[in-house]
């Protein structure tokens, strides 16, 4: 399909707050992006009209109870079927930060056997509390997450994280099995890494939140639902990068290839 025909739905709930930079990135990509309050989505929108759904970061409903939980359950209750259908059609669904938490709480991620009824993972309290800092993440996905296939495996992206609950965890009694599945299904997408690309091995602040196996982002086995804690939309332009005054100012930053790949994939696939 043509780029300017691509329609992106960015949903927001009370407390969503990384919506404008995400909207800006999509619009700069030349696609149609719409930011809609989720109550309005429930009442007046048809998910079928969109090609991509994006859940931005923030503190939906104050992150009370658990990050992303209230919004996730509300969505499940109000448009659960439609969302599931959207995912089953293979269309890209992306959640960043709070959006990732929402995708875990709704059961779409890790989604070992499709959407699960109860969450199969969690994003727990970070080991050092709330942190806003730049990290490096390496793309480790081997191809299942097709929407990111224009970003080569092994690419290191510098992006900021800003969260208090982002420590990826699996149930203790199923940890080994689940982790193995994540690898076997090629569900690993981003891992926190050092400057040379080697894994953070849990070391703070290279791994900023204590995430299991340095996990920064994963996808479902089908590869079309993607969640990550770091914020590519906040690294979209060159002037947002942390060292542009010494390394030089480019138009785009490390977040650009992320969005670029998602849009290229959508153009090709649909």
């Amino acid at each position, binding site marked *: 399909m043509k780029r300017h025909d691509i329609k992106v739905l960015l949903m927001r709930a*009370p*407390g*969503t*707050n*990384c919506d*404008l*930079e995400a909207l*800006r990135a999509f619009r700069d990509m030349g696609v149609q992006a719409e930011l809609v*309050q989720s*109550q*309005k989505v429930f009442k007046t929108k048809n998910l079928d009209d969109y090609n991509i759904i994006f859940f931005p970061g*923030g*503190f939906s*409903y*104050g*992150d009370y109870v658990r990050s992303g939980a209230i919004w996730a359950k509300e969505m499940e209750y109000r448009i659960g079927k439609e969302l599931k259908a959207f995912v089953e059609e293979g269309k890209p669904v992306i959640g960043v930060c709070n959006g990732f938490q929402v995708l875990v709480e709704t059961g779409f991620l890790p989604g070992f056997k499709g959407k699960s009824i109860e969450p199969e993972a969690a994003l727990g309290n970070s080991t050092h*509390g*709330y*942190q*806003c*800092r*730049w990290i490096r993440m390496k793309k480790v996905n081997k191809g299942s997450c097709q929407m990111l296939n224009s970003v080569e495996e092994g690419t290191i992206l510098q992006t*900021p994280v*800003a969260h208090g609950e982002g420590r990826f965890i699996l149930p203790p009694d199923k940890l080994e099995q689940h982790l193995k599945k994540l690898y076997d299904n090629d569900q690993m997408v981003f891992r926190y890494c050092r400057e040379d690309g080697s894994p953070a091995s849990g070391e703070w602040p290279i791994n900023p939140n204590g995430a299991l196996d340095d996990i920064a982002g994963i996808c479902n086995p089908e590869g079309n639902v993607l969640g990550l804690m770091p*914020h590519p*939309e*906040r690294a*979209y*332009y060159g*002037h*947002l990068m*942390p*060292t542009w*005054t*010494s390394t030089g*100012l480019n138009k785009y930053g490390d977040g650009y290839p992320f969005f670029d790949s998602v849009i290229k994939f959508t153009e090709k696939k649909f």
Partner: protein
Amino acid sequence: MNRIVRSSQAFEHYLIDLLNTSDAELKEIGKTLGLGLSLQELQYIRDHYLIKEKKATDVELQTYDQTFSEHCSHKTFKGYVKTPDGTINGLLKTYIRKETEEINAPWCYSVFEDNAGIVDLVDDTLVAIKVETHNHPSAIEPFGGAATGLGGVIRDILGVWASPIACTDVLCFGPLNYSYEKLPEGVKHPTYLFNGVVDGIGSYGNSIGIPTVNGATVFDDDYTGNVVVYAGCVGLLKKDEYVKNVKSGDYVVLAGGRTGLDGIHGVTFASAELTKESEAISRPAVQVGNPIEEEKLKRAIKQISEEHLGSGITDIGGGGISCGICETADKYDLGVSVDLDKIPLKAAKMAPWEIWISESQERMLLAVPPKNLEKVIKIFKDEQTEATAIGKYDQTGLAKLNYHGVKIAEIELKSLFNPPKTTRTANKLAKKSVEPEFPEPNNLGLILKKLLASYNIASKEKVVRRYDHEVKGQTVVKPLQGWNSGPNNAAVLKPLEKSDVGIVISSGLNPRYGKIDPYWMAASSIDEAIRNNVAVGGRRISLLDNFTWGSPEYPDRMDALVEACKACYEIGKAYNTPFISGKDSLYNESPLGPVAPTLLITALGIIPNYSNAVTMDLKKAGNKLYLIGETKKELGGSEYYNLHGYLGSSVPKLDALKAVQSYQNITDAIDSKLILSCHDISEGGLAVALAEMAFTGGLGLNINLNKVLANEKLRLDFLLFSESNSRMLVEVSEENSVTFEKIMDGTTYSSIGVVTKIPRLDLNYDGKTVVDEALSELIKAWKTPLEAPR
């Protein structure tokens, strides 16, 4: 007391007979109703009712109480001050506003008028900025106090129809290692306050999604009893969105959170008959913030302002809706009638006067023309929040309050806004601090590491990273620089998609100097704020003044206040930097004494092209390092003296004319892209600034200290650690050095060394190495103290 009788209404409503009351009776009435009014003010009110020949109601007296309070009316800054040299008629008028009026900058759009100061940015876009204090609430409940402080200042920005884009916070605590045994009863430990305040600011700012991009964190013994919390907010609006046009017939719309018993203070209306009713309801002494409520308000108000649906707006802060509604009516020469029973409540039972003065958070007041009312209410509803029309503006010049159809108050607005002027007295205390004498230490490298590890200089990463400074994707120069997280001088935002203009935000405060000399303390704060701004490329700077002071009822505190105000006038004027907004918090006294006089100066600058912004990290080996400005033996109040346990008396002064010239030249050099890195010299002096530039950039420095320009021959430790004002360090490439020197011509500057690949700070004097430290050791010293376990 028989002067106060309950009316025949079913709800709580009292009538007060003021006719022929004696002074003693007035005082008694004030006490019974829990009013903070002075006798002079009570007499003024009595005389007013005498003319009207009617009884006052509880609601009316509460309204006077709120409006006349220091918080709402700034009596100390607007009243008379008797000094040995004559009487000053209003500190604000005589110094601060006068400075602004005389500078008369064409780009000042609205100053001292509204909830926030507003200046031009570019084309039809304006920037609004406000800084507030929230000291007392934070001392009682650090998390809630700091959070609601930030929430309050964000509402100030919403209150000029602007959308918030950034926050600042400046915090002052006692030393974190303060002994628990020494803490007086009722004073909370600095560590408890520090953790609570920082989490409170973080939680509110992060949740509402406004980046906190600049601030300062200061530690001093004098803050142990009086914690200081400043919170600031910056917002953007378009000229045509700044609608101030309330007309008779417009609705009073109350939006946001529900009204509860929060923040109804010091009420001693506990007569026997009342206690029974009030027992069940406890009054929250502190407030719990709800950032998500304010996030929804923010979205709705943005839409309303873009669509020009309101005719006026104000935030609800101190004094509750009583202040917001009456002020609005008075400002437009109108009257207003309000039905208090229409206000949505969160507590089941509230007396009308409580509803009227409640300070519940997250509420805004809008004036809405009848034709837009429905649309406005719907916009709030679509954001999942409430808005209610509770009254109407009219032409009567009166505020008329009704409760279930019964008129419970009628106040003449003119009488409310012309309170009698307070008179304060200012007098110096005869105390003199002395300059210490001690031998020059021989291991200056060790001293440098100790200074880097002192709480005031050490990395504030633990604070800064608790705040989201990246949200909205506009932060071009971040509070902490690069992967080594060095201390940047100021934050730069690029807020507009279609313009390269940047906003530069910095702050300055030097409380320790204030213990020696409040005039030079204020002057230094102004210079520091401006210096930090200029160092990253800011210009066309406007200033905000925030005073945190002890009780104005003591002549010595007043004297210090007068001195600081004088400096604001004289130094601000010399720098051509108008004051556009400010705030005072007085009565900061504790069992440990008054707060150190603390003037926070916030500087708002612009940079025409953000891509010229300069950070403080060294860029490349081989480049030259210049020192701008003159070094003097000015160590009074310095970190270096403090390290030795002294205060001293040689407080840094400044030569404004020279400073203005060198700042102008620096700006020219930045615009010519000659400056690769720049760092201001402040706490810890030259040596600390050199170390910070080096370890942030990961590059070494080889410095010849003989090249440092000083007004006299200085001892080496004084040379390294003096805190003389108006100095900066600048990195310039070899090939640009000639051009740079030409631009700097006529100002005090010298080339003092070169950037090297060797990761060491190498300082030499008379051909001998005097400091030679590995950068890794320096950064460790700097990073460790505040990173240590809580």
